């Protein structure tokens, strides 16, 4: 059927009607005033309009018609009177001249009808395409929005907004379940919903949800009277109200879930039916939101765990300070009182009593040793162990060992031999801690070596390839270069091979073979291992049950780079601190490259002035121990004071860990000012 609208004078009318009267043509003739004509065209939606060019206002009418989107493809055919001048031919799609020839007119109409139909199809396809494109666009934006937040309710907002844009719903009903609170029904509507409709949607959403889990247990056992409604109406001022009949609109339904994790259900209602593309788009959105929801849920869980952990950490450090202060303080007068009694200055005491007092004194020393161990361990674990590396010769410390343990060894008639195979080079270490390592190992051996036994302490220099890496307690360490190796051998009770890694665990003494009466809380070896680790060394144990054990420790000999690495990691381990490092000018560029490579430092935070504009004559390797924030607070009341101090030290690099960014930046700024 071809719809033809006639915009012609009466004279031509009968002839044209004659030509066009055919059952395949539907004709309509313009009648009345200008506005009437436009209305007629609007309702008729013609495929073709025949216009006589001598008609008054015809230009205006045609322009009006063409400006309406749905008439854009309507074909305009002019019927031309030769004697009438016309300058609107550019508006025409086709021309037929008077006098009219039937065949010419019919074939023109026919071909333009075909054009019209093709254009219509093109237009429809185009519309579909641009809609799909728009939906895709929204989906794309939505997915990046989804990725940008870990806030659950924000995610739902984004989802609803995306559906509103792409699926233009009348009513959207999103039921969300929450682990800790009431289920929430997000109702988003264009016009105001009636009370009845809200109740109906509540029931409907919960029914939808329950139907989904008909044959299994519900992930959340909630009912509709528990639902909290959050309602938003777009055009709340309009008079239109959605009644309960809106439920008969075309609807789309989907659950929001990923894997077994279920978050809620979505249902959309729209008066105009949804297309297949709409369904795909809907599914894409509801599917897309589920993944970030799961991340958000995990994030919420992690942050609440984190808060708990932070609290625990605080309690722990409070505990440590109580241990250190409150336990040690009363020990002091106990110890002093015993000393006074022992010195006979408070009166003579009988020899039997003296023995008991000596026993009490010895146990106080043990107790303070345990407190010290506990504190060390806690410092190591919280990264607060303050190591002061220096180039040191450890030979005197080894020699001191014999003296320190002489008395205890004599009690059990144990011989302690020291063999230093060659002159030991200096190592870069905290000597006090190195001594602690040795004395822990020797006292450990003393504990488990029987009467009349022997302990040999052997020191030598070894190459990394002489070390059997598989035996190391922490085998992942990267061994290179030369090491000092110190072995403590005893002929004590030995350790079962399976038990060897366990002895470095906290509070462990191998219950079966080593009973509790050997004393100690089992922290010595844990601390020893940690101290060795922080010196970039390693430890391993060779042992045979009932024959004895050898504890081997290796500590690296340091070249400049190693020293730098140690300083750096030391400064970085102490979290939240501002560390200061002096470096050799000649090597600093290499070092900075090294830093960048290892991502140890955010180089951008170091200002060039600090790095390069220093006195080039200075060449030294020196390390100023970092100043921790706590002491920073105590000594330097302000960052300015602190900066003056480090500026006077002429440090080259100021290190700061990422989360103390503010301090780091501020310090570097002020130092720049001071330097200029």
């Amino acid at each position, binding site marked *: 059927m071809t719809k033809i609208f006639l915009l012609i004078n009466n004279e031509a009318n009968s002839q044209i009607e004659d030509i066009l009267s055919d059952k395949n043509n539907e004709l309509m003739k313009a009648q009345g005033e200008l506005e009437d004509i436009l209305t007629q065209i609007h309702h008729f939606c013609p495929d073709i309009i025949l216009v006589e060019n001598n008609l008054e206002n015809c230009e205006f009418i045609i322009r009006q018609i063409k400006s309406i989107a749905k008439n854009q493809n309507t074909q305009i055919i002019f019927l031309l009177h030769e004697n009438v001048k016309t300058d609107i031919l550019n508006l025409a799609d086709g021309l037929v001249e008077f006098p009219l020839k039937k065949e010419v007119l019919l074939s023109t109409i026919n071909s333009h009808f075909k054009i019209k139909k093709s254009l219509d199809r093109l237009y429809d396809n185009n519309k579909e395409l641009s809609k799909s494109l728009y939906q895709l666009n929204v989906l794309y934006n939505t997915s990046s929005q989804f990725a940008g937040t870990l806030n659950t309710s924000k995610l739902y907002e984004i989802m609803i907004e995306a559906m509103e844009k792409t699926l233009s719903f009348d009513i959207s009903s999103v039921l969300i379940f929450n682990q800790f609170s009431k289920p929430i029904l997000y109702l988003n509507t264009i016009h105001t919903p009636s009370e009845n409709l809200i109740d109906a949607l509540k029931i409907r959403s919960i029914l939808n949800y329950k139907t989904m889990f008909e044959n299994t247990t519900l992930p959340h056992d909630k009912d509709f009277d528990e639902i909290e409604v959050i309602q938003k109406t777009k055009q709340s001022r309009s008079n239109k109200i959605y009644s309960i009949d809106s439920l008969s609109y075309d609807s789309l339904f989907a659950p929001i879930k990923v894997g077994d994790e279920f978050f809620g259900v979505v249902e959309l209602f729209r008066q105009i039916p949804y297309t297949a593309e709409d369904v795909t788009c809907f599914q894409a959105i509801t599917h897309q939101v589920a993944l970030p929801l799961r991340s958000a849920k995990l994030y919420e869980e992690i942050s609440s765990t984190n808060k708990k952990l932070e609290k625990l950490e605080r309690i722990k450090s409070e505990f440590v300070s109580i241990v*250190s202060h409150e336990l*040690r*303080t009363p020990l*002091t*007068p106990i110890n*002093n*009182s015993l000393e006074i009694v022992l010195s006979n200055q408070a009166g003579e005491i009988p020899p039997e009593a003296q023995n008991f007092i000596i026993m009490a004194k010895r146990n106080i020393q043990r107790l303070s040793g345990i407190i010290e161990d506990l504190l060390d361990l806690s410092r190591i674990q919280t990264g607060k162990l303050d190591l002061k590396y220096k180039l040191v010769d450890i030979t005197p410390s080894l020699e001191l060992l014999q003296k320190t343990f002489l008395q205890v060894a004599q009690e059990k008639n144990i011989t302690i031999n020291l063999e230093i195979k060659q002159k030991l080079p200096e190592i870069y270490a905290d000597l006090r801690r190195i001594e602690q390592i040795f004395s822990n190992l020797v006292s450990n051996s003393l504990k488990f070596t029987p009467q009349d036994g022997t302990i040999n302490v052997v020191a030598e220099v070894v190459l990394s390839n002489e070390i059997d890496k598989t035996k190391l307690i922490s085998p992942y360490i990267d061994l290179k270069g030369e090491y000092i190796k110190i072995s403590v051998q005893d002929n004590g009770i030995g350790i079962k091979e399976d038990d060897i890694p366990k002895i470095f665990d906290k509070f462990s003494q191998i219950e079966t073979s080593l009973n509790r009466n050997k004393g100690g809380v089992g922290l010595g070896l844990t601390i020893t291992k940690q101290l060795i680790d922080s010196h970039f060394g390693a430890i391993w144990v060779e042992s045979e049950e009932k024959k004895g054990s050898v504890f081997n420790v290796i500590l690296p000999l340091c070249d400049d780079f190693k020293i730098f690495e140690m300083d750096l990691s030391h400064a970085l381990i102490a979290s939240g601190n501002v560390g200061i490092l002096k470096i050799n000018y000649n090597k600093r560029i290499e070092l900075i490259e090294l830093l960048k490579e290892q991502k140890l430092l955010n180089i951008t935070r170091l200002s060039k002035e600090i790095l390069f504009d220093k006195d080039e004559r200075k060449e030294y390797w020196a390390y100023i121990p970092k100043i921790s924030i706590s*002491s920073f607070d105590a*000594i330097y009341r302000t960052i300015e004071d602190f900066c003056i101090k480090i500026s006077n030290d002429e440090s080259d690099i100021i290190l700061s860990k990422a989360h103390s960014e503010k301090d780091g930046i501020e310090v570097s700024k002020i130092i720049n000012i001071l330097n200029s």
Partner: protein
Amino acid sequence: MKKILIVDDEKDIVETLSFMLKAKGFECICAYDGEEGLNLAKNSNPDLVILDVMMPKINGYKICRLLKFDNKYKNIPIIMITARSQDEDKLIGEETGADEYITKPFEFSDVLEKISKYLKQNETV
């Protein structure tokens, strides 16, 4: 007789310490909080001060700093008693100008050794 000022809020520590020091021939004056300690340090002319860190009113570090940054008193040797023995505490002490450190619980012989670095002992018991 050399005069030693002991400042500690732990009365038992003050008592045992002063007992032993008196036995070794020192004169002891005692204070039980920071404020009193600072007053005595300034007004009673001690030859040496033994100072606890954690104290009510004014803490030991502050007293130390106040004395060491005052030309009138900066020559009085100060021995700090700390319960923490942490290196950083020592560092703070060094910055505040304390001369020596002892860690709780301490051996009396250690205290005596450190005092003797600064005071010629008067061995008349």
